[in-house]
């Protein structure tokens, strides 16, 4: 009964019961504005009647364009503009996080090399100084030669009694410059980390909620995009979670990860060994779900974390004791075989 409204790229159409055109109000013939509209309509999907007049005919009849050819030319122009602006918008999201994660890695690599150089070099002048990394760089940046360590400083005694060589003025300037650079790399590193924290909160709030920003960002980066991570089955999440790159990132001294690095978090690390596999699987499943929710809706849904916590609790309660060795092995053995079979199948293809 009621009239249907349908927005085409060139105007608003009012349609009758059978989809026939009743009225048409045209938009401005400005390609840039029309492109903005086209993009908007990609996002806010409208109800589209199956019975509707042909767009080209309406555009011609309403004199929006005069010739068939004009229709093609203008529509092409509008759609190219629209697609370009959509692409530049997508560049703001997970792809920037991936760049940031990779920048962190680059900085780490450089900072480690430079810090080692600084350590070795400065060690000739002050071998008793037991500092490395950022602490060392900050120290050198502040004092330069050990002769400048002021009276009353915790290290002043060590400094004055050091068996290290004298530091010439030229060398001191050089070492200070190097140390300053290293300090500023550390500053940048913190800056990027903050950036990742804030952007993860908006790009992948659910993932963030489950794994924390930095691991979440790392998972996106390893998958290639949030979309890809969302498409992975949770078994794959478990595998990339176990990868060395992620492990390295945590810079923990724990021995090589049994259930994957994302599972190196206290929930699992502090659990008794017989619960860990199950806990890890539950965590991977929720990471998957979180990534999907982030990709498709983008809204934080606290229920994922709640469900995870519940699930973890129930696993703990259901498995209070270590399994007995032989007698109960039957059903468990089956479960184990299943995963193996899955693996072999994958291998064959």
């Amino acid at each position: 009964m009621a009239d249907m409204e349908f927005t085409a790229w060139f105007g608003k159409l009012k349609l009758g019961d059978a989809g026939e055109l009743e009225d048409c109000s045209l938009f401005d013939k400005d390609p840039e504005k029309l492109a903005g509209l086209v993009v908007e309509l990609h996002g806010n999907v409208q109800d589209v009647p199956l019975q509707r007049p042909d767009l080209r005919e309406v555009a011609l009849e309403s004199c929006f364009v005069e010739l068939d050819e004009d229709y093609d030319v203008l529509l092409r122009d509008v759609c190219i503009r629209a697609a370009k602006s959509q692409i530049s918008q997508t560049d703001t999201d997970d792809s920037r996080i991936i760049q940031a994660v990779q920048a962190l890695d680059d900085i780490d690599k450089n900072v480690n090399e430079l810090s080692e150089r600084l350590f070795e070099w400065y060690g000739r002048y002050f071998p008793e100084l037991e500092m490395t990394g950022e602490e060392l760089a900050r120290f050198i940046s502040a004092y330069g030669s050990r002769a400048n360590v002021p009276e009353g400083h915790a290290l002043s005694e060590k400094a004055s009694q050091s068996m290290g060589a004298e530091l010439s003025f030229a060398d001191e300037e050089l070492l200070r410059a190097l140390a300053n650079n290293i300090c500023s790399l550390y500053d940048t590193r913190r800056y990027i980390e903050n950036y990742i924290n804030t952007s993860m909160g908006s790009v992948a709030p659910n993932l963030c909620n489950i794994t924390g920003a930095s691991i979440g960002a790392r998972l996106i980066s390893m998958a290639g995009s949030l979309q890809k991570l969302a498409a992975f089955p949770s078994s794959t999440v478990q595998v990339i979670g176990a990868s060395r790159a992620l492990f390295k990132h945590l810079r923990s001294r724990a021995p090589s990860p049994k259930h994957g690095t994302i599972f190196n978090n206290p929930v699992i690390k502090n659990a008794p060994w017989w619960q860990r596999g199950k806990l890890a699987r539950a965590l991977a499943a929720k990471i998957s779900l979180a990534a999907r929710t982030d990709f498709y809706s983008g809204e934080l849904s606290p229920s994922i974390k709640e469900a995870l916590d519940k699930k973890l609790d129930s696993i703990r309660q259901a498995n209070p004791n270590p399994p007995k060795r032989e007698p109960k092995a039957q059903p468990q053995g089956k479960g184990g075989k299943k995963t193996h079979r899955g693996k072999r199948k994958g291998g064959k293809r």
Partner: protein
Amino acid sequence: MSVKELSRGIYELNLDDRKMLATRNIMPGLSVYGERLIVDDGTEYRQWEPSRSKLGAMVLKNFEIPLEPDSTVLYLGAASGTTVSHVSDMLTDGLVYAVEFSPRTMRDLIQLCDQRPNIIPILADANKPQSYAHIVEKVDVIFQDVAQPNQAEIAAINSKYFLEEHGHLMLSIKSRSIDTVASPKKVFKEEVRKLESDFDIEFEVLQRKELDPFHEDHLGLVARMFVDDED
């Protein structure tokens, strides 16, 4: 060199006893993805590698290709436009709407659109035809190569919204994106069944053939939307 027209706008060149598939380059001098340009008698052709294009393979598998110079085509899964560029060559008086949902890939496709006058790029998800119904008119042919588990459904809903009565649907079905373990034959059979009976529009399957050796585990299919003429 001899030139034979296999279908409207699709040629077989015989060059020193080597046969190759080609289309007439509507933008002479420009190669799109590194393909060879061959000039014969003042006409420039672009070599079309069937192993890089499902549509090219369908030509060599003797499908009847329902494309005419003035066709309007909706192409779902345009990727960076390898095949779309050849379709664009064929449509000297037509238009192709190229839908692709990966922004990354769309970047390359846009460069192609910038060069050619008859490709309209659309960055959208083929699962949601409503999201581009404000742009796409009724089309004569839908070509779909999306490698998604719900390929049949995507084809059906797009046909419902955009295909002319008696228009043609050309489909490339990749068995592994539907079921990674089932035998391709079984998957194909099921997809054809779905297409013929699962949706509220009907298709008459005109031709179906696997695309080997050009593409393993892919089925090519041409169907016509079936319309009850009785009412």
